[in-house]
């Protein structure tokens, strides 16, 4: 059984924000909507302080609170473990936003253009058709790319066409994506070698995004 997951090596991350921008390009998220964001924090006490960047997106939990609280079944976990929102089913009650302990979800109250004074650009007109107003959105592990590549002999995490945009763009090779159930996959090896751990494991959500060198403050 395939179970997609990701590991983010914070010891490699340089905090360039390229993944956040690549995510916006791939998924055409309107102004103010960030499926993937980088939280920049100051850690330690002077003089031993440093700036730590932590990319945050959906953790695609195995035991996802957002899925069990959704009254309509719009939030669902696919067979390959990716948690997605069916925009056609979502009623926008925002319960999942309150249930998610990672702040992965955002409510689309309206579509905000990037250049309000000149309306939607042709690029925006094309891209925003993929979004709906009044529903909740979040990172999908670029499931559209994984689905499009299915049956073409491409391996998500290895072949560019079937891999999340944030990973492809990463200048520091900080991200690894693949099948967590396959012990020989790149992602499983990195997690085992570098002792990666998920964020807030004590909540019992079983996230499928792991971090290397995650600060204790999380």
């Amino acid at each position, binding site marked *: 059984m395939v179970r997609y997951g990701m590991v983010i090596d914070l010891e490699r991350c340089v905090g360039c924000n390229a993944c956040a921008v690549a995510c916006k390009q791939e998924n055409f998220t309107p102004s*103010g909507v960030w499926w993937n964001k980088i939280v*920049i924090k100051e850690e330690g006490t002077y003089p031993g302080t440093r700036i730590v960047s932590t990319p945050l997106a959906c953790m695609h939990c195995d035991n996802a609170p957002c899925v069990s609280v959704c009254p*309509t079944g719009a939030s669902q976990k696919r067979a390959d473990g990716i948690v997605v929102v069916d925009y056609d089913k979502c009623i*926008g*009650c925002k*319960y999942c936003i309150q249930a998610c302990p990672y702040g992965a979800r955002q409510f689309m109250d309206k579509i*905000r253009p990037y250049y309000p004074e000149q309306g939607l650009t042709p690029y925006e007109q094309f891209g925003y058709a993929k979004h709906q107003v009044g529903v*909740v959105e979040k990172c999908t592990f670029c499931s559209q790319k994984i689905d499009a590549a299915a049956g073409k002999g491409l391996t998500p995490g290895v072949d560019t066409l079937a891999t999340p945009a944030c990973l492809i763009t990463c200048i520091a090779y900080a991200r690894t994506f693949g099948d967590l159930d396959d012990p020989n996959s790149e992602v499983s090896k990195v997690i085992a070698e570098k002792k990666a751990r998920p964020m807030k494991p004590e909540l019992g959500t079983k996230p499928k995004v792991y971090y290397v060198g995650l600060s204790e403050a*999380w």
Partner: protein
Amino acid sequence: MGYRRLGEGTMADLTQVTWGWLLIWDFFLAGTGAGAYLTGILAEFLGEKHRVAAKIGTFLSAPLVIGGVLFLMLDLGRPERFMSVFSNFDSLIAIGSMFITAFLVVSVVHIGFWIWPFKMLEKANMARRALGIVGAILALGVMIYPGVTMSLTAVPLWATGLLPLLFIGVATLSGMAATVLVLAIYHARASGDVKERAVGSMKALATPLLGLAVFVLAVVFFLTMAVANIGPTGLESTTLLTTGAFAPLFWGGLVVAGLVLPILLLGMGVRAAGRLPVFAAVSSILLLVGGLLARFLVVSAGISLAPPHFAPGQEAYFSGYPPQFVTEFLVDVKPTGFDYAIVGVFFLVLVAAYFVAAKIVPTGKISTAKKV
């Protein structure tokens, strides 16, 4: 408290901005409706002489709950799809919606027992009481479900077993206060024998009302204490309520004006029997405002465990920079003037409604009765 800086101490740098006044009004109206129904059933079982109180409670129930449902639907991003709320019965919103629907059916049927085309059913006491018991169970469901719903979130202030208890207490309290307020209006306009009976019902309801207010006060106390001990995020919520930006509304509004003052007034009213109606009306109004404030404070002071996220429109805080590249971002966690205005206007509307309904606008029947 006021403005917060990202990265100070905890990861909870954003109060929840997802749920607001629309949901608060839903909680208030639906809870008050269910509480009024429960009060009506209580009066019904107290005996024939409390018939008016039973009627008032029942008549308040369905309209208030329908009002709450309207606010709930306005809060949805896609109200036109509300029917699909009954899809995943793992979700408490689905279960709660079912309780609300069933309660509305039962309470509308119950109201039917009292009104014109079915007036002959008014004598069917047994049937009405049996229906009342079913309705009371459903009313409990309507009252408790927001609390249980909120307790299954990543917000420590809400994620305790005390929240369902608070919601049950506050809903019964508001519902009973609403019933007593209408009873006081009824008393002011009635005359003779009926007037005496209204005083009797008020007297009978004053003691449970007082007890409930004390209970809610205790739950509020234990809730803030318990949440403070859960962890840093919970402590922040408690701080926000007790010494932070919400403290004036918490201490002055909820604790003193919304609970302690009505408790004292009710106690005085019960002792000085002649003044009970006025005391009961004033304390009911205060209890209703306190009930609204309790929901407002619980919803607004919730701080999520989730790392800071950027709601659409929040870029306003970043003075032109996209939030991605800002390490310090400001979130206003103060109650706004709008919040104060809503609570104040609600109080004034209740006072005005009481004066208009009880004193100023006479109907033909009662004015002739007074002349006689």
